[in-house]
């Protein structure tokens, strides 16, 4: 029983193979941010005037502004979809197989999270490549610098999905997750508009946005894409990641989690 990396390799490998076999899912995951980028942003650019805020050093188009937010959206949706997969897996039994491995449960779940984060990253890079092909380019090194931020955000949002999946009793409740978790999280963030714009409309909403960990995932991605370091974003994302992981592992503790979920 020495092969911890072997377990990781196997779980990530399985996620990867499943991903390859679900090309429709990949396309759907790609179409979503592209619709936002090429349709929503095109229509919206006239309505929203952006001033120069860090990390940007000059005026930017609205399309350029929302690219990091859309990267984070890909990661968010993928993390949630993977949590849907977990509920499905639990109903279909393959989660049981995973959980009866003699390795510690937290390690098995962490590997699964890492696997889905890596899949998200592949989708993000495909999206960034398409955006670049249409002229929305980042500094070349930014594409590399963003990698740790994407990975961390992927684990954070995946852990949030994992936590939700331990609370959702049935598959049908996933629509509720969409409405009550994904959309509010996405809209109450700096993905589509800078927070100062939000403050102009409502102080309260601005404060909520400023507490939303997703905002910091967006900013972490935005700043690293432009080769700048945003310490507060990194700190928030790190804290949220650890908190979500701890809660998710707690949710899957055999002494609870499954007991409540089964009945």
């Amino acid at each position: 029983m020495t092969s911890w990396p072997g377990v990781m390799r196997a779980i990530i490998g399985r996620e990867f193979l499943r991903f390859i076999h679900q090309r429709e899912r990949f396309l759907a995951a790609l179409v979503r941010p592209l619709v936002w980028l090429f349709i929503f942003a095109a229509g919206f650019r006239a309505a929203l005037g952006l001033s120069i805020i860090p990390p940007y050093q000059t005026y930017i188009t609205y399309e350029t502004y929302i690219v990091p937010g859309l990267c984070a959206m890909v990661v968010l949706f993928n993390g949630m979809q993977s949590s849907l997969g977990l509920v499905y897996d639990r109903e279909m039994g393959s989660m049981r197989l995973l959980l009866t491995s003699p390795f510690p449960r937290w390690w098995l779940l962490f590997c699964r999270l890492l696997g889905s984060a890596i899949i998200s990253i592949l989708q993000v890079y495909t999206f960034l490549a398409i955006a670049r092909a249409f002229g929305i380019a980042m500094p070349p090194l930014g594409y590399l610098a963003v990698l740790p931020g994407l990975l961390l955000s992927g684990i954070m949002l995946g852990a949030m999905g994992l936590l939700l999946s331990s609370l959702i009793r049935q598959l049908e409740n996933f629509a509720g997750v969409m409405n009550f978790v994904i959309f509010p999280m996405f809209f109450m963030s700096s993905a589509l508009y800078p927070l100062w714009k939000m403050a102009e409309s409502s102080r309260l909403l601005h404060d909520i946005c400023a507490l939303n960990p997703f905002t910091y995932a967006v900013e972490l991605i935005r700043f690293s894409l432009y080769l700048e370091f945003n310490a507060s974003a990194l700190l928030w994302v790190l804290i949220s990641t650890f908190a979500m992981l701890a809660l998710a592992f707690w949710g899957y503790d055999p002494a609870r989690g499954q007991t409540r979920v089964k009945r």
Partner: protein
Amino acid sequence: MGSFCALLGPNGAGKSTLVSLLTRLLVTSEGAIHIAGHNLDKSPRRALARLGIVFQQQTLDMDLTVNQNLGYFAALHGLPRSEVPRRIDAALDKLGMRDRANEKIRELNGGHRRRTELARSLLHDPAVLLLDEPTVGLDAASRRKITDEVHDLAKEGLCVLWTTHLTDEIRDADNLLVLHHGKVMANGKAGDVRGNLPLAEWFLSRTEDSK
């Protein structure tokens, strides 16, 4: 050394709950579970490493091949990589599945899928084999075949716990535990328990009365 123990009970008797407890998906605050001498609560890793499981629901990846499914499981159990191909071949040989090693699960029929799961449960060389209603959804021929194969495994030295609600899968020489309303109603050799009645009749008379 080996033994075949059938856990018989009508639907709702508590079989699935017991299986969840034995596989540590649920934990109980009372009592203790020992698997091959290891306490499941205190040393779960050692206990689980000695336990082979075939779940009631299918747990194979449909788009992966038999080999890939078994390889995934071998890694989940931390088997040394150098040994995995040999172990997979041996397990598939035992169940006559070797020639299907590279077929996708989606292309296999129900009986072959179950045999794949059985082969998988043997990969890590468990001492105890737990099968949760493994014949559900199989046709008569496949059912018979799996039942025979697992009886053979018990003869070869495995300790088998087989849950079912079908009496024809149980032989007189098997150990029989009858579970009803969450309680053990009978415990002994199947032949002794049923007395002069056929097991099916004995079982119906006992479980219908008290419903």
